[in-house]
């Protein structure tokens, strides 16, 4: 694919975690019996009228603020098209005046991705096609569940600033973390509460004009998003290099077969006949209310990463820092810093041992965690012992001192360590002479022998320091 640059813009739909639907008081709940959370409004019965859910507006404002958008007065439009899971045969959405506009999101690596807009709209019902090929036109019959009809969505549209499948995945991952942090969404892509469509095009490296884009739909995980983009980029490059042209169209990602196929061309695209929704009034958020929401928002992931990185003396984009923040473990770092313990050590333990047992996090209290770090820093436990103790703390709870004692763990340090080293050096006199003469790699041999001789109880970091000091002293 050399010589080609990939250009990606993403449209992310997220369901909002409101108690009720966007325009009626039916429960917004996943998994209930079909057509139990419905009323005249969300069934679009004749004569019914929508009334906007204030909490949904609150969440949309939170999302806008978290994405550094302008929160502006907005109106609703009707998007007209026929589909059986859409009860009114139009969707109430926002069009040229969305609630949030012109913001940005910072990827962990520091890159800023532009946010064109974020707007409120209602979800559709769900159709199951029975018989035929499972598609609407050859089904024997179709069943529609309107429980999801009218569930509030926010659609977040990025600018075409992403340049690879990896960046696209990082963007969605970061956006998901932001949505969860605002409380607006549960961010569950697999359950469909977060849905991603990708606009993909390619252009020669160095070109500033955009190539013809295709919109790819139906990716239901970060993995399938990455695969779909990679496939689509390869398809477009192959096409153009073979002398063909990319046709603007909507394409469907087939997860099982690993390819995209044409859904509808630009010519077949719907004319949605947007016009202002006459049943609703403009949404004009009071600036003071928006400021209140801004002030009440918790810290967003990028800010948390900077804080953790600063405390630990690491880079904000380092894997350990990213992992700690993604898993919401930064309160442990905060507790470590408050107790004056080693925050760098804390981040390493959190990003490794704690991350791998994240399901058992409830067993781990910040205080016990900090106590363990202190025992390790003070040399009371070796690194290996500290890891074992931490695993036990996560799986069964309990305090680190008790667990260490039960294992019979105590780090060999001080005079005992010196004595043990004396023995190892005496048993390997030749090697010692070569080590003193400058053969650095032999340090590993002494450490290995020491670990064997002390059954793993030696504080190996302290032992290494003693070895270096003795060599420097020439004895």
């Amino acid at each position, binding site marked *: 694919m050399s010589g080609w640059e990939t250009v990606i813009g993403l449209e992310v739909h997220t369901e909002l975690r409101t108690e009720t639907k966007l325009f009626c008081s039916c429960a917004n709940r996943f998994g209930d019996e079909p057509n139990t959370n419905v009323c005249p409004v969300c069934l679009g*019965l*004749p004569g019914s*009228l929508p*009334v906007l859910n204030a909490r949904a507006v609150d969440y949309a404002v939170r999302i806008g603020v978290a994405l550094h958008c302008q929160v502006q007065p907005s109106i609703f439009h009707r998007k*007209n098209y026929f589909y059986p899971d859409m009860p009114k045969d139009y969707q109430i959405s926002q069009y040229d005046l969305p609630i949030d506009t012109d913001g940005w999101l910072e990827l962990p690596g520091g890159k800023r991705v532009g946010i064109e807009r974020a707007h409120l709209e209602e979800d559709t019902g769900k159709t199951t096609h029975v018989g035929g090929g499972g598609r609407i036109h*050859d089904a024997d019959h179709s069943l529609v569940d309107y429980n999801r009809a009218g569930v509030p969505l926010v659609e977040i549209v990025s600018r075409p600033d992403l340049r690879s499948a990896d960046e696209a995945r990082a963007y969605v991952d970061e956006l998901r973390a932001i949505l969860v942090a605002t409380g607006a969404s549960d961010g569950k892509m697999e359950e469909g509460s977060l849905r991603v469509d990708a606009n993909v095009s390619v252009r020669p490296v160095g070109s500033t004009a955009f190539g013809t884009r295709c919109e790819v739909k139906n990716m239901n995980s970060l993995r399938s998003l990455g695969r779909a983009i990679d496939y689509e980029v390869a398809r477009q490059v192959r096409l153009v290099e073979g002398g063909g042209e990319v046709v603007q169209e909507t394409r469907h990602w087939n997860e099982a077969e690993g390819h995209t196929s044409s859904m509808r061309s630009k010519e077949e695209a719907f*004319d949605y006949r947007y016009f202002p929704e006459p*049943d609703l*009034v403009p949404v004009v958020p009071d600036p003071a209310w928006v400021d209140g929401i801004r002030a009440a928002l918790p810290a967003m992931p990028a800010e948390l990463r900077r804080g953790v990185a600063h405390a630990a003396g690491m880079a904000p984009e380092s894997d350990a820092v990213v992992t700690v923040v993604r898993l919401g473990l930064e309160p442990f770092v905060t507790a470590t810093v408050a107790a004056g313990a080693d925050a760098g050590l804390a981040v390493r333990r959190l990003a490794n041992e704690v991350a791998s047992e994240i399901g058992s996090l409830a067993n781990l209290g910040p205080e016990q965690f900090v106590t363990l770090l202190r025992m390790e820093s003070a040399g009371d436990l070796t690194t290996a012992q500290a890891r074992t103790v931490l695993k036990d703390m996560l799986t069964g709870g309990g305090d680190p001192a008790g667990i260490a004692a039960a294992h019979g763990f105590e780090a060999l340090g001080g005079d005992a360590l010196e004595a043990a080293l004396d023995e190892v050096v005496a048993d390997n006199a030749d090697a010692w002479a070569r080590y003193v003469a400058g053969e650095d790699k032999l340090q590993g041999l002494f450490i290995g022998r020491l670990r064997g001789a002390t059954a793993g109880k030696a504080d190996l970091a302290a032992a290494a320091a003693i070895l270096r000091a003795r060599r420097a002293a020439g004895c």
Partner: protein
Amino acid sequence: MTAVEIAGAVRSGEHSAVEVVEEHLERIARRDGGVHAFLHLTADAALERAAQVDEAVAAGIDPGPLAGVPVALKDNLCTRGVPTTCASRILEGWRPPYDATVVSRLAAAGAVALGKTNLDEFAMGSSTENSAFGPTRNPHDPTRVPGGSSGGSAAAVAAGFAPLALGSDTGGSIRQPAALCGVVGAKPTYGLVSRYGLIAFASSLDQIGPFAETVADAALLLDVIAGHDPADSTSLPSAPPSARAGLDRGVEGLRVGLVTELTTAEGLDPQVVARTREAADALEAAGAKVDEVSVPAAVYGLSAYYLIAPAEASSNLARYDGVRYGLRAPGADITEMYVRTRTEGFGAEVKRRIMLGTYALSAGYYDAYYGKAQKVRTRILEDFDAAYQRFDALLGPTAPGGAFALGAKTTDPLTMYLNDVCTIPSNLAGHPAVSVPYGVDAGGLPLGVQVLAPALGETVMFQVAATLEASR
């Protein structure tokens, strides 16, 4: 008996609501075969309801300001468990699971609903000939139309089937049939009466309003149904003006403008203009200061209306697709089912307007049609605002002429559309207007004049209307 008299007599125990209702049902049984005002009667429920009203009175409980008063409901108002068709095949047999807000408010005020009245399909028309279930005839002359689209409600009041009725007015659908049937009909300020449960034609223009034989009865009914409803986002939050507060005040010192564009509109019968001028003279004689006033943009009202209303209708009527309720004409696939259902279910006028509206909203045409029409709407509002700087209320004809013969205008939609030329500007502005019977034409058929007022100007509007009524 007027509604005011019936309510007074029932509340005092002087009359029984059951007797009142029986009397009206008898009249309907005797005469509605020739009028066809009703599509569906709810006689049993009405008698039951009347008995409850009587029981309440006997128990010393006030049933409300419309105690025992029979009311007819246009069949585009949702009534729980009672067929609601919009006079369309596509909704035949559908029974709403809920009551429109106005229907609930009537019940809470002690009124007794008699049934559902005929209309032009989905309220699209000016003669009630577009009903899928046959036309309504004018009680004054059965060879003539009652006007429309609320022709059934207007005819019901004119025939004495009910002292009160509700209609809906999108471009004149209450006022024009009121004029043609010789009754009072009012379109309130947009947002004064909840639209919840009114089956939408053109949402930004639709407004529910009263029919009655007298101005005082119409005002009483409006006061019962007006007021904020949280179920309708376009319902006005402010306290509603009283329609009855000015009924006895007279018009001494009021400034009334006779709208030039309405008295010179295309196709007006000179007799209508003559009656309007007589009305102006009567107001002057009663102490009002009457002058000519121009509302220049009103002449573009009809054109703007026939873009905005069909555009909204094309979207509002999309839901009648055979999937969930009403008519379903089976097809080999979903598209064929849609097409066959809508082809069989909708009448010619509804299809015409859906096509007009779909076209007006289409990509590439939106700015030239819908966008431009909205600009005209703004201009009309500005011109009315300027007029109301100088006048408390305005005056004009309601309809271009008296009731016309059935079939006279069905072949030419444009001639039919001209019926609304004097009423449409108020809908576009969102302002209230009331039609008051004022004299007759050479054939003895009733004519109406229209009193227009600024937004929430219902008090002064009914004040002027009451004076006109008294001057006849």
